[in-house]
């Protein structure tokens, strides 16, 4: 993106329009924003219309890399990953996590925050400060796929593949907590994710294979 366009983009949203709670970037503020956003992002956004908007620069640790990004209070982690720019104007461009349901119903946007699987569409960027964020792009070690990724490929636990990054991260997080799950435990452990192509049977197989490979 050219500098002119980038500048324009920043200006575009920095104009006063929407309230940003005072003292942006602190945990307390984020906590006070979160419930309303969690309840109904749409209503919260509407409630903010017409009030003053503020932006803040925050630092995020994504896949062991530090990013400085400018966000609004409403900016989700998912939005930073997919559509955000760092303060030097470079796109974050981590598009592995997918926007599918937009409201915590499908798991397509699952990432790890401090080792726990979270829906990044339901996580405010502000709340992810100071935490370790791992996306599907951060699981492989160079060209060496993570055992979960390897098992997904081996068992064809993916078809169109749009839900796959979310499932891979969810499966990895699940195995971190339950290294040798039963079939029923796998079903329950991955119940927060949806696949429309119907790859589930092979996902279950992949998780079992990955569990064995990881010594579970």
């Amino acid at each position, binding site marked *: 993106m050219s500098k002119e366009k980038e500048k324009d983009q920043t200006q575009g949203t920095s104009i006063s329009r929407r309230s940003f709670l005072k003292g942006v970037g602190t945990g307390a503020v984020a906590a006070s924003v979160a419930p309303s956003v969690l309840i109904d992002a749409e209503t919260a956004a509407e409630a903010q219309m017409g009030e003053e908007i503020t932006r803040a620069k925050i630092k995020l640790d994504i896949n062991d890399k530090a990013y400085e990004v400018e966000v609004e209070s409403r900016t989700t982690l998912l939005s930073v990953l997919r559509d955000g720019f760092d303060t030097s104007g470079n796109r974050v461009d981590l598009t592995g996590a997918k926007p599918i349901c937009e409201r915590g119903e499908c798991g397509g946007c699952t990432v790890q925050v401090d080792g726990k699987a979270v829906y990044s569409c339901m996580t405010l960027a502000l709340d992810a400060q100071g935490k370790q964020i791992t996306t599907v792009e951060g699981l492989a070690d160079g060209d060496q796929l993570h055992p979960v990724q390897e098992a997904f490929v081996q068992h064809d636990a993916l078809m169109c593949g*749009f839900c796959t990054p979310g499932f891979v991260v969810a499966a990895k997080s699940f195995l971190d907590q339950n290294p040798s799950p039963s079939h029923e435990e796998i079903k329950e452990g991955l119940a927060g994710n949806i696949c429309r192509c119907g790859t589930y049977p092979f996902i279950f197989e992949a998780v079992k294979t990955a569990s064995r490979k990881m010594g579970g």
Partner: protein
Amino acid sequence: MASWGRPENSRLIGKRVQRLSGADKATGKAKYTFDINRPGLLYGHILRSSVAHATITHIDLSAAEALPGVKAAIPLIEPGKRVRFEGQEIAAVAATTDDIARDALRLIQVDYDELDYVVDMEDAKEAGAPQIRDDWEGNQSEPRVDERGDLEAGFAEAAVEVEATYHAPVQTHVCLETHGNVAEWDGDNLTVWASTQAVFGTRQNLARHFELPENQVRVITEHMGGGFGSKFGPGVEGVTVAKLARITGAPVKLMLTRKDEHLVGGNRPSMTQTVRAGAAQDGRFVAYDMSGYGTGGIGSGAGFTGPYVYHVPNYRTEKSAVAINAGSARAMRAPGHPQGAFAMDSLMDELAEKLNIDPLEFRRINGDSDARRDRIRQAEYTLGAQEIGWHRRNRVPGSGTGVKKRGIGVGCGLWGGGGGPGTEARVTIHASGAVEATTGTQDIGTGIRTVIAMIVAEELGLRPQDITVKVGDTAPGLPSRGSGGSQTIGSVAPVIKTAAMAAKRKLFAHIAPMVEADPGNLRAVGGRIRTESDLRMSISWKEATGYLGMETISEGGEWDENLRVGDTAGVQFADVEVDTETGLVKVIKIVAVQDCGLVVNRLTTESQINGAVIMGLGYALLEERIMDDQTGKMINANLEDYKVPGTMEIPEIVSIAYDTDRKITGIGEPPTIPTAGAIANAVYNAIGVRIRELPITPDKVLNALG
């Protein structure tokens, strides 16, 4: 004449081969349309009608236009025109961020002069209901009548009769990647990254709309997040995003929201049919009189099959469509078949019971109306019955004891899927040894990319990963059909096969003099070229292609109908457990025996069968678009209240890919057809009460149990 050869001679065809795009998909590297981020990208969104039926009297875009960050705001409907369903397009914006674009929609003022609406099919048929389509009189289409044999004589011969009404709901596609595109202009050249099942169809549509020659429009679909029949052509959103990109002079991404996707992304029409049918004492199905209709919303198509699969000599059918104020139907995975199959297989069981004949035996007696399919189907009955343990079913339906009752049922389906001409492809061999296979099809998640690589690799003695497959792009100018009707593999594979054969012949002819061999005596095996008669000469693939020097071999292929087959038969068996206290139906096991013609990739074929069964399970037990007649709106336009199958609903699935002959056929749709009928019959076998309405939700089970 080209043939796929004998199975024992195939190194790759019929084996389990990992999807070539697997690693890209599992690591997040795969870029879908939704992931395309172009420099200077703007974000588009569409404002949609919030009401079911109204005349638009005024649209004021000024506040949206004034919002900082908004680069364009355009109307999509003229004041004075009608909107006919919740979700119809009214205006669109492009802005520097997705959030701003959504904010801008809220600033658009729309004045509606609201009209009476109707979202219930039965209400819509009433005299005096609000008129929905201008081209119909009333809201019901002219019925289409089909007749065969002598219905009266058939009923006269019948020893038993069944009269029943079956109903199936509207199902939405729920593509996880919503419909949408990224559009970018360079002068008068338009590039569109599209989430589509038809790159060439989309190109043609856009070229026509913008009055451009086709070669000035390029459509790219590298990876695609689910279509199931709903993604052909650019749609309103595709044309709109190209307009926004032209106005702003910047690339624009416009992907539908999840709610939009439910409202306008297409759906499988509903079905309500009333049937009277008769069977003779000896088990022959002799008479079928059916009258039915379905709704495709404001759309006109709501067809379904019937009679279906089974041979009945005397029938009369009357089918029509009913318009309501709701989003239009689109083709959805085996259009018309799952709804027809559910009703037909329910009816077959009801007739069998009245005759006191085993339902499977009744099906065997009234074989498939097509002789080839019938031969296959009879064998499938035997295989499937054995695998499910048909003998375990309740002789007397509902006779099991305990709170949780088990039952077993059967269902059937048929499909075409043989493909057709119209695909152009090239197989290119470079001096470096690199091989490319290029064609204008698209991989919508079915694995055609891997299949193409397997076919070329088989022919050239290489590994699938040695072949670079280029699909999903109109730029090479090698058209192929849209990926629908399970026609992709039957259309593409023969052309790829013959192109690879031609490229190999040319390579052999080129190198034969160099290695002092007869070209007819050369073989490509295991990454080497060698002579067949004696193993005297054997060089590596790269040595061989090295002889090309400055030349490149690039050959096209011909569609050969002898390499593919259509008209496949499928049979499924379901084993279910019904909790008679909660009404919950749990599917324990599905056995899917599917005529797969020649299986190319056994691994991805099994994936397709699993996926189709699971979508059929959703249709049977979970999925339904719910329209609220108090507001005219869809009240479950999300992924929480619109239930698609999740991990907890997944039964054991035994997919038996039944190789019927050495010809290729498409398998994306057929295995979704029999599932709902098999499950409905299994539920009946468990509880002894017939539920004739999908989805079979706990409330219906409890009501049925009384």
